[in-house]
């Protein structure tokens, strides 16, 4: 950090003031995520100017940007839960499987109804799905907080077995449903905007309020910083770790509803496939440290939007969707490198060398030499 600041230290006061503002922006937690997102959007607009346009059709807003947000909604939800888990120095690899299980449970219940479009049936289905998702979160939480298993391994169990459980629920079939009420979760519109956007925004708002307007956020961060120390300070660490995994399971379940509602079908094998990886990427891009101890909800939302924008960009440029993984890999490595202290220190050292190439590494030792030369002449 100090190495970056050294660039603005010398110079006249006017530049210093501007520099101070710039430094504040540059050092803001969300500087890099916003910069990457803006760069992606600019790239899209320059490639296809219609990208930015919004059209009103039959009272619904349409446009690429709306599409991006709507498709990012499940990812935002999953990444939100993941953010809290990662803040406690954990990780939840099972979110994709939990999404598949919850979606399968809801679709199974709806498919058994005589009137699939009845709202009451859909509500019961959603409640069932939520219960199953919470149970999955509880299982992960008990393994991590109760038995003290490392999170990556504890959640790996459900990641492996969960897909099997989802297929068990659907009996290995793809359950298709015809329920407009359920499909509305993903494809419905309200106030000219897709309902999925409102659901994601509401969950983000609730989590942000609860964590940042109460002590909960600080407690989660302190548990992630040092679980033992926070326990000695009087925080019931285990209870909060359990809670966080259950919230993560719940978020994954909600995402599962959106994913299955989008196609009106539950596919135990493919629903939410790889979403855990995208979610972890979104969290990391958003500036939440994988080492735990701090988290940024705004950053995570931006991270999820970046990933979805990247995917959409690749589609728009007629590149094969699978090849988009190449771009994702490059973005991940760049973002991780930028955030890594070791890499920053190295770059800062290189930059200092580049700026003053003639200056030897130890100026203090060289100045006397110059004096001697002057005296001698």
């Amino acid at each position, binding site marked *: 950090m100090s190495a970056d600041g050294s660039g603005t230290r010398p110079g006249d006061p006017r530049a210093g003031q501007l520099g101070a503002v710039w430094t504040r922006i540059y050092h803001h937690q969300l500087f890099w995520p916003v910069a990457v997102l803006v760069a992606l959007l600019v790239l899209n607009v320059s490639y296809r100017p219609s990208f930015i346009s919004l059209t009103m059709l039959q009272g619904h807003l349409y446009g690429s940007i709306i599409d991006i947000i709507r498709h990012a909604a499940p990812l935002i939800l999953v990444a939100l839960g993941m953010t809290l888990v990662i803040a406690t120095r954990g*990780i939840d690899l099972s979110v994709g499987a939990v999404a598949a299980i919850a979606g399968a449970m809801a679709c199974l219940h709806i498919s058994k109804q005589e009137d699939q479009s009845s709202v009451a049936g859909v509500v019961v289905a959603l409640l069932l799905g939520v219960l199953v998702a919470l149970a999955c979160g509880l299982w992960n939480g008990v393994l991590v907080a109760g*038995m*003290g*298993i*490392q999170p*990556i*391994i*504890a959640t*790996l*169990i*459900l*990641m*492996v*077995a*969960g*897909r*099997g*459980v989802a*297929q*068990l629920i659907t*009996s*290995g079939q793809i359950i298709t449903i015809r329920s407009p009420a359920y499909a509305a979760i993903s494809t419905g519109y309200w106030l000219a905007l897709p309902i999925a956007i409102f659901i994601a925004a509401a969950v983000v708002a609730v989590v942000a309020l609860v964590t940042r307007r109460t002590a909960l956020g600080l407690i989660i961060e302190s548990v992630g910083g040092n679980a033992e120390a926070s326990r000695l300070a009087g925080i019931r660490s285990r209870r909060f770790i359990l809670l966080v995994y259950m919230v993560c399971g719940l978020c994954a379940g909600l995402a599962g509803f959106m994913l299955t509602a989008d196609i009106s079908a539950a596919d*135990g094998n493919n629903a939410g496939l790889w979403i855990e*990886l995208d979610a*972890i*990427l979104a969290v*990391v891009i958003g500036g939440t440290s*994988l*080492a735990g101890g701090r988290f940024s909800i705004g950053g995570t939302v931006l991270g999820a939007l970046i990933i979805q924008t990247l995917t959409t960009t690749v589609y728009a440029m007629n590149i*094969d969707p*699978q*090849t*988009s*993984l*190449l*771009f*994702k*890999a*490059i973005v*991940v*490595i760049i973002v*991780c*490198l930028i955030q*890594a*202290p*070791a*890499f920053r220190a*190295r770059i800062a050292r290189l930059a200092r060398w580049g700026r003053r190439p003639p200056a030897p590494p130890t100026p203090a030792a060289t100045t006397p030499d110059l004096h001697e030369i002057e005296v001698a002449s």
Partner: protein
Amino acid sequence: MSTVDNVLGRVRKLRVPQRFVPLIATAVLVVLLFLYGNANYRSFEDAQVLFNVFISSGALLVVAVGMTYVILSGGIDLSVGSVVGMTSMICAKLLASGLPAWLVLAIALTVGPVLGLAMGAIIHYFDIQPFIVTLAGMFFARGMCTWISLDAIPIKDPWWTSVADGRLRFGTLYLKPHAIMALVIAVIAALVLAYTRFGRTVYAIGGNQQSALLMGLPVARTKITVYAVCGLCAAAAGVITTFNITSAEPLRGIGMELDAIAAVVIGGTLLTGGYGFVAGTILGVVALGFIQALITSDGSLSSWWIKIVTGILVFAFIVLQRLIGVRKR
């Protein structure tokens, strides 16, 4: 807990070193699975079922062996499944373009280790979590697969297909050449880990990296080499896959990293590093293979039970490691 203590006491009286307990548990599991299968299904009537595991899971065996190195050193490599896919695509594409088989082999076995080397260097020098770096490696390799070709590529090279069609008979039993390759790689890896300076250093780093550094062990070199070894194993597994099915498709090897990690855990290796054996991993792969064979032999169970049982087994072995107290201090 008292019964557990009793059992532990008896185990100690038997003078079985505690570090072998998970290994023995896995061996017992494999024997029990075989006996159960032998009593109930015709496909388990002789040792051919074991050979079939090596034939069908040869690639998984090699991947899991490489994964054992990485996990022992305290890391994890999520890219292996994609590297298997990428290597098999490279083989098929280059063979289709008419390059000689030996050159294709050389190129295919270079790409994986180079990617591993790069990931290892980033992990070590920039101190980024192995999990996230190898995740990027996984995306990269999978992207390369589809960049090479969107469709499956058949392999028609005469040498390649002759190896693929080879059979080595032992009386009524048989093995295929690629299964032998997998076993040879596993044995070499086990010997290197147990009897070389490099192998001991891997254990030391997994046990406590700081101590290893203070002892003057070459931590940087070893850590990076471990990822290169894992990449080499994944590349070898990719080649073995092409021998097994004489074609390559861009989605080959998806989820293989999970199977490999599961095999390593069931084999008794501690996921925090520093403790475990390649022999355990071999037993872990055999256990997974037997479960698969049992479930497919029993017509009434559907294929998704394989995933559920694998998850239960991983859970059981983690609990076992907890109970016998083999853990990081």
